[in-house]
């Protein structure tokens, strides 16, 4: 099981044929049993692989992601294909005239797009339970959810079929499945990575980001997407991180293994309680509902029965919210963001759980929140949603637990300081605290934290 760096190095050196790698990958994707793939892009992948091999043969460098196959959540424009956003409603839509901007940047760096990947319809959910394309399975336990809404993007990387993938994160749709599938998943500083050609959900919070199995791969893919280099850690170059642990509601709804890891990582770090965190999450919930409902109102009025029933009813409800309530939530957000940014300005990294629990069973997709059972589809993002609200970057990191159900933490940083998060995560990975633990039955090989670091 090769990672991004290893694959690109081999292709650039001419020791690995991009075409051969793509052929193996296409076979594996067609045979995938996790309901992670919605379309396999055979012709495009082969053409791009041949072009990469030709460049290498001609002595030219295809780029830092040379020949690396990857997939995208089914809401990125892929030239020549309809962008479905996970909905049967758009299965026969007009094909996209160009790739999304993120794909264009990855292609320019030599990466090869081989598949579109499953998601909750219109990204409205944390479960990847999709009426049109099926429920994505967790590679660590196929009877459990992969999380969502970027569940296909997470499952396919966790299963070892691709070295990286792209997802989108509006309220936790990258970090939740990253936690449940045992991967690194980045929600960048709001608006930092290109959203051109991405089907929107709630524009106040929409972001895109990668899934990978190592920090090193994450940093490389982020560099390509962001168009700038990781600068190696803290702005002052000291290598010492000012760390705080998030308390209150974050610790009240968490697994003991998450709290033990947080306390082991930073035993002396102050416990910071973000004020009014429940109010923030509820405001995010309302803004998302309003913006999502408004986006789809016209289609709901004419083709309601073509929607996934559970998504449809959520969207209709959002479309009926009063404008004044939306403005009230946005006003709260503006005030809240200013307060939180001031509060956390003295820290480089905040530690928090990424999800409140492990992957729920598909047969009973409910989780305990504040002692009561709640639908996983709506509430798995209880810890990611309030962070999204602030616009700060957040990197989900997997606790290293080979052979056990995956679960992750969030490393939350200052705006524009993703490099701090990568440097801090690399230390955790090197110490064996975080890392990808290959699920049984995954593609092949084993990526130990020390190998990946």
């Amino acid at each position, binding site marked *: 099981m090769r990672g991004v760096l290893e694959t690109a190095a081999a292709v650039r050196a001419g020791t690995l044929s991009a075409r051969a790698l793509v052929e193996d990958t296409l076979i594996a994707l067609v045979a995938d049993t996790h309901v992670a793939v919605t379309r396999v892009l055979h012709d495009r992948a082969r053409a791009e692989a041949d072009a990469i091999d030709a460049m290498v043969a001609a002595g030219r460098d295809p780029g830092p992601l040379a020949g690396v196959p990857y997939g995208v959540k089914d809401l990125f424009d892929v030239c020549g294909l309809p962008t479905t956003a996970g909905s049967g409603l758009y299965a026969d839509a007009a094909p996209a005239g160009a790739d999304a901007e993120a794909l264009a940047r990855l292609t320019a760096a030599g990466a090869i797009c081989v598949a579109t990947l499953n998601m909750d319809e219109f990204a409205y959910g944390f479960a990847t339970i999709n009426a049109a394309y099926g429920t994505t399975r967790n590679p660590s336990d196929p009877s459990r959810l992969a999380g969502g809404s970027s569940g296909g993007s997470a499952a396919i990387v966790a299963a070892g079929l691709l070295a990286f993938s792209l997802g989108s994160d509006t309220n936790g749709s990258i970090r939740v499945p990253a936690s449940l599938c045992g991967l690194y998943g980045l929600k960048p500083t709001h608006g930092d990575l290109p959203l051109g050609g991405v089907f929107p959900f709630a524009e106040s919070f929409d972001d895109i980001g990668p899934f990978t199995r190592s920090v090193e791969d994450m940093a490389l893919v982020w560099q390509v997407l962001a168009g700038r280099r990781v600068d190696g850690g803290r702005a002052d170059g000291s290598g010492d991180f000012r760390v705080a642990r998030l308390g209150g509601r974050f610790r009240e709804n968490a697994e003991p293994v998450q709290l033990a890891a947080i306390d082991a990582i930073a035993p002396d770090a102050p416990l910071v309680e973000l004020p*009014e965190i*429940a*109010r923030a*999450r*509820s*405001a995010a*919930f*309302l803004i998302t*509902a309003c913006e999502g409902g408004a986006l789809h*109102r016209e289609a*709901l*009025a004419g083709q*309601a*029965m073509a929607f996934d*029933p*559970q998504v*449809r*009813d*959520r969207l*209709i*409800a*959002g*479309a*009926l*919210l*009063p404008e*004044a*309530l939306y403005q*009230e*939530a946005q006003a*709260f957000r503006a005030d809240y963001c200013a307060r939180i940014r001031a509060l956390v300005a003295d820290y480089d990294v905040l530690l928090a759980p990424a999800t409140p629990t492990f992957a729920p069973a598909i047969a009973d997709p409910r989780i305990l929140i504040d002692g009561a059972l709640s639908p996983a589809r*709506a509430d798995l993002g209880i810890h990611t949603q309030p962070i999204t609200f602030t616009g700060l970057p957040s990197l989900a990191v997997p606790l290293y637990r080979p052979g056990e159900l995956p679960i992750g933490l969030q490393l939350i940083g200052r705006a524009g300081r993703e490099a701090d998060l990568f440097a801090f995560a690399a230390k955790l990975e090197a110490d064996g605290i975080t890392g990808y633990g290959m699920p049984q039955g995954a593609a092949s090989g084993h990526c130990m934290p020390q190998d990946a670091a």
Partner: protein
Amino acid sequence: MRGAVIMTAWRIVIRFLRPRETMAQIPVDPPAEPPVAPIRRDVPAGDAEIAAVAAARGLPILPECAPGVAANLALLARHARIMRGEPA
């Protein structure tokens, strides 16, 4: 007598020669304010209210959707209360 007749005739002429703008400045009762609907801040609840709001927005709710929409609106109402710091 002749002077009084001349003055009266002059006032009549002046009245008809008065510019229209000046006429418009004559105080009149202001028109009644149109009734202003109170700004709605609450999440619609109950079948009738939900149906009325939906109809006003051109979004008919099919019978198959009604229970799910009502349940989701109840959840959103709960979030609105939490956001305002009220008991959930």
